[in-house]
């Protein structure tokens, strides 16, 4: 590792030396002409010398070239190219504004360029989606959805309809780092997993890293979903919104100071009582969220951004059951240009997840959650046209509230109890270099040093031999050990410290401008664990830090891919194979109690996980007909062997399928622009059924019929999952030349009304007293209509 650091330091020096001739830097920001919204991933190209750069997350670019006269081309699909002759004889700062090629209702619909592959960039296993694509994808109940959209990409699945979260390359839902404007989102779902927390109107761009994850990111082992909110229009005031069957949205944006500052406020809420007339009881279930963003350009070298998100789910059943949960995020950022080659961003982020529950029929209130404060300082150094260095530091302080219970009324029998709060600090220091060795070979290499300190807490159990779980050799049961003592710590004490070095390496070898192969390796460490023993996480699940009894998860991932761009990027083909293994994946003893448990270590065993597979993505990027075909062949499994030869472990220590293992996964997404009035889109999905368990027998105990599950865990399969969704978008022609722009989206989810199995359960029918296998399916055919507007 030291060698890598020395090598890269040498390379930095070497580069500087080599290029200390007459060289000048062109830098600036690229934004959209109509709104000043900065554009991410715009190509700044010098075709004669085959050099180029793309704009970063804040629309900034910088490139250094020898003195000369060049053709400069700024290109971003859906926008008019800027081609001009540039005499580079001194350092120059030029901000470009791109103009859309045509009048369209949805200004982001045309940014699909961001989704196309970059043949020479070593970054692989990366999928990008624009807000426009997300809004075009037909979805259940017509509610455009970020998470549901990424499920159509290769390597991404979920625990089924209604299941929260998503699974990337056979990883668990808690192994995804979900960032909204750089702030961690702990629960990405509304109404369990039916909708996601991201309002598509407020989103500019998203990237999903499935592998080859740059050193900039850390803390989760499976993927990074990096979502950027729009900044707001600093030229004109605009409102857009939509009315759907489930929810309505409205978003306002406009200048605070023209061309210098803008605001954006977006709100979305589902209807609480829409479905209630069908039920004669006083129940409600709804969600809402609020997105805000302010930005202000202080001067050419300084920008500040303030972004916020607040979302809640609310359930109220007859005033007897009240449940509120959601995320809050606040982020203050300062972009500063130290020079035309050194871009920096300082972020101060607060985020939390709150879960509150009141069960009046039992007589208690419960709340739990996680809070964190995050300080990030990231630098991007455009050292030369062939060498860019990203480096930074990131420190996160966590406060975990595993739960607190209180009586909710005087006559309640419940006594108040507070579970022991937990505290931790996670520090990451990284550097990442993108190094163009030749026109064919580009390397990306970096390392992240992560350090996690489990800080002192009021009480921590100690156990004989530090072993909180004991095994009964007679009954083959695991159970919690009796603590032998309790240690009290000061908040500043370090109960346990972990330090890990996480190398990340990637390369791309381009045969020509259209074809390349890429390879990557990344090691990552995850210090937080979501305690969840269900097939998909529930909102009630709590996060717990690594510490004395829970070890951090460690991942190694290897991936190789072949990338081809065809017919001038009209088509692209991406194929990848990957293998990953994760150490210290926690598993749970039989009958584990994970909620309101102060001694969670008594329920946990240490296991491992692995996944491997092949992904194929064929895309058509241009024309009236666009879309993609994605296929994934993969395997995801885990095992938890016994700690000693006597112990059985989980599933007798053998490998078993994770609940989200899907052998085959095909998704086809397509859209067709029939004319300027009608647009059509369709999805088709086929997946191997989820792993499940069938009983090998039954027995009777206390007059209950009890199924026997003594086979391999998750070795059976639900029937395969498949469905077709279609949508049609109508843009009335009268929209032309008027301020008010409206659009109707008609969609049908699961067109052929297939009853896809969400689960199959085995029990005795209460009426017939016969044993049955009962299949639950969630969505049948669901037609929907949504109206979107903008003015």
């Amino acid at each position, binding site marked *: 590792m030291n060698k890598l650091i020395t090598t890269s330091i040498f390379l930095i020096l070497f580069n500087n030396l080599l290029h200390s001739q007459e060289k000048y830097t062109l830098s600036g920001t690229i934004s959209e002409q109509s709104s000043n919204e900065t554009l991410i991933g715009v190509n700044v190209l010098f075709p004669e010398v085959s050099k180029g750069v793309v704009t970063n997350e804040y629309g900034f670019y910088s490139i250094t070239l020898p003195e000369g006269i060049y053709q400069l081309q700024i290109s971003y699909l859906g926008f008019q190219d800027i081609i001009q002759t540039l005499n580079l004889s001194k350092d120059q700062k030029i901000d470009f504004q791109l103009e859309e090629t045509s009048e369209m209702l949805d200004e982001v619909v045309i940014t699909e360029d961001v989704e196309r592959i970059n043949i020479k960039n070593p970054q692989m296993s990366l999928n990008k989606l624009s807000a426009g694509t997300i809004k075009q994808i037909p979805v259940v109940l017509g509610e455009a959805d970020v998470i549901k959209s990424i499920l159509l990409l290769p390597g991404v699945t979920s625990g089924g309809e209604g299941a929260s979260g998503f699974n990337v390359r056979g990883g668990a839902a808690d192994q995804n780092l979900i960032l909204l404007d750089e702030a961690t989102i702990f629960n990405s779902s509304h109404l369990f997993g039916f909708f996601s927390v991201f309002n598509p109107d407020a989103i500019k761009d998203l990237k999903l890293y499935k592998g080859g994850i740059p050193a900039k990111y850390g803390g989760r082992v499976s993927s990074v979903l990096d979502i950027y909110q729009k900044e707001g229009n600093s030229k004109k005031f605009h409102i857009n919104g939509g009315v759907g069957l489930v929810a309505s949205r409205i978003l306002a944006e406009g200048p605070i100071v023209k061309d210098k500052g803008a605001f954006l406020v977006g709100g979305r809420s589902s209807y609480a009582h829409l479905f209630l007339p*069908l039920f004669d009881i006083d129940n409600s279930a709804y969600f809402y969220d609020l997105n805000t963003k302010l930005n202000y350009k202080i001067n050419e070298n300084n920008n500040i951004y303030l972004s916020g998100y607040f979302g809640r789910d609310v359930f109220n059943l007859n005033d007897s059951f009240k449940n509120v949960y959601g995320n809050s995020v606040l982020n203050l950022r300062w972009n500063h240009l130290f020079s035309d080659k050194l871009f920096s961003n300082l972020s101060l982020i607060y985020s939390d997840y709150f879960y509150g529950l009141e069960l009046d029929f039992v007589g208690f209130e419960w709340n739990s959650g996680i809070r964190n404060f995050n300080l990030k300082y990231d630098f991007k150094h455009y050292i030369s046209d062939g060498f860019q260095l990203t480096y930074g530091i990131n420190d996160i302080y966590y406060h975990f509230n595993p739960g607190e219970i209180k009586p909710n009324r005087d006559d309640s029998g419940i006594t108040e109890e507070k579970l022991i709060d937990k505290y931790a600090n996670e520090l990451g220091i990284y550097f990442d270099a993108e190094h163009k060795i030749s026109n064919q070979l580009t390397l990306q290499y970096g390392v992240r040093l992560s350090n996690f300190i489990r800080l002192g807490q009021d009480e921590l159990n100690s156990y004989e031999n530090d072993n909180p779980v004991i095994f009964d050799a007679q*009954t083959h049961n695991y*159970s919690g050990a009796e603590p032998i003592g309790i240690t009290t710590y000061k908040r500043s004490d370090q109960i346990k410290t972990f330090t890990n070095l996480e190398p990340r390496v990637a390369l791309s070898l381009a045969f020509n401008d259209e074809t390349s192969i890429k390879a990557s390796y990344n090691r990552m460490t995850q210090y937080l664990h979501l305690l969840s023993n*269900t*097939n998909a996480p529930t909102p009630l699940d709590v996060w717990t830090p690594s510490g004395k009894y829970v070890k951090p998860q460690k991942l190694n991932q290897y991936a190789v891919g072949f990338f081809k761009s065809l017919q001038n990027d009209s088509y692209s083909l991406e194929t990848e194979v990957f293998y990953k293994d994760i150490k210290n994946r926690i598993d749970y003893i039989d009958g584990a109690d994970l909620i309101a448990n102060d001694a969670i270590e008594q329920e946990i065993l240490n296991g491992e996980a692995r996944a491997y597979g092949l992904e194929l993505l064929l895309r058509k990027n241009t024309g009236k007909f666009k879309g993609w075909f994605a296929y994934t062949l993969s395997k995801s499994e885990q095992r938890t062997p016994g700690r000693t030869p006597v112990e059985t472990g989980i599933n007798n220590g053998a490998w078993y399928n994770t609940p989200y293992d899907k052998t085959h996964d095909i998704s086809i997404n397509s859209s067709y622009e029939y004319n300027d009035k009608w647009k059509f889109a369709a999805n088709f999905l086929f997946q191997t059924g989820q792993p499940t368990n069938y009983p090998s027998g039954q027995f009777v*105990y206390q007059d209950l019929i009890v199924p*026997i599950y003594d086979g391999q865990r998750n070795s059976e399969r639900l029937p395969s999952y498949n469905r077709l969704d279609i949508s049609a978008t109508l843009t009335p022609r009268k929209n032309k030349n008027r301020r008010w722009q409206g659009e109707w989206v008609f969609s049908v989810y699961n067109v052929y009304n297939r009853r896809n199995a969400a689960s199959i359960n085995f029990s005795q029918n209460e009426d017939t007293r016969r044993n049955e296998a009962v299949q*639950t399916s969630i*969505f049948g055919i669901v037609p929907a209509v949504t109206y979107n507007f903008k003015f």
Partner: protein
Amino acid sequence: MTKVFLLVLSMLCLLSCEDVVDIDTPEGTPQLVIDASFRIYSDEQPIQVDNAIKLSLSAPFFGNNILAVSNATVYITDVTNQSRITYVESDIAGTFIPDQADAFIPQFNRTYELTVSYDDETYIATANLIPTVPLDEIKQGDGSFFDEETEIFAVYTDVKEREDYYFLDFGFNEYAVSEDRFYNGQTFDFPFYYEDLEPNDQITISILGIDKQYLQYAEILIEQSDPDGGPFQTPPVNLRGNIENTTNSEQRALGYFHIAQAYKLSYTVITP
């Protein structure tokens, strides 16, 4: 949690549904099942002791018959004084009762060992009488989550000095378990929602004292015998009771040997 999920599901997706499907389940080998959960109703006059032991064989899940086991030797040893209570098969096949009526009234602070010999293999398990508290009253509430539900509270007062685990029998094969962790020493109203009860129906609720190990067993038992659909299920587990096979430790018996002090109370449903 699952209940709320199902409710949201029913509110959101009026088209979601359940279908009975044909599944070929694997067939395991038949295993001996020992159902020895004793209830000692000590405040009844005379003391009522439910201490029958039911022996049967496990069967394929879609097999029709659970076979009773008759040709077994069954006895209980009071470990404290090595006295033995012999069990014989009653008129009901597979149900074994003490050979002399009233011969066996379990006492506190004694360890009892159950021995079953069947098919040349010997199974043993031990249990102690676990104390509990009487039901103070049964109350009817007017809350409910779904239609056709009747809210009933089983009210009992926990003992502060003791870690208590409870098993509640609501009749109709409906059971629940609870621990006193969040209501230690308090009077607690345990809610239960009956389906399809009519005014004037009579219900009887029993409360049983259990230990932590049995609570965990019963929790899984209740969950696995009546699972909820959807994505929030825990993986089913191989239920292992407290019965050992001393002849062949790999070939275990299913079921549990447990002795509970118990109380019961009846209630007549009123029009809410």
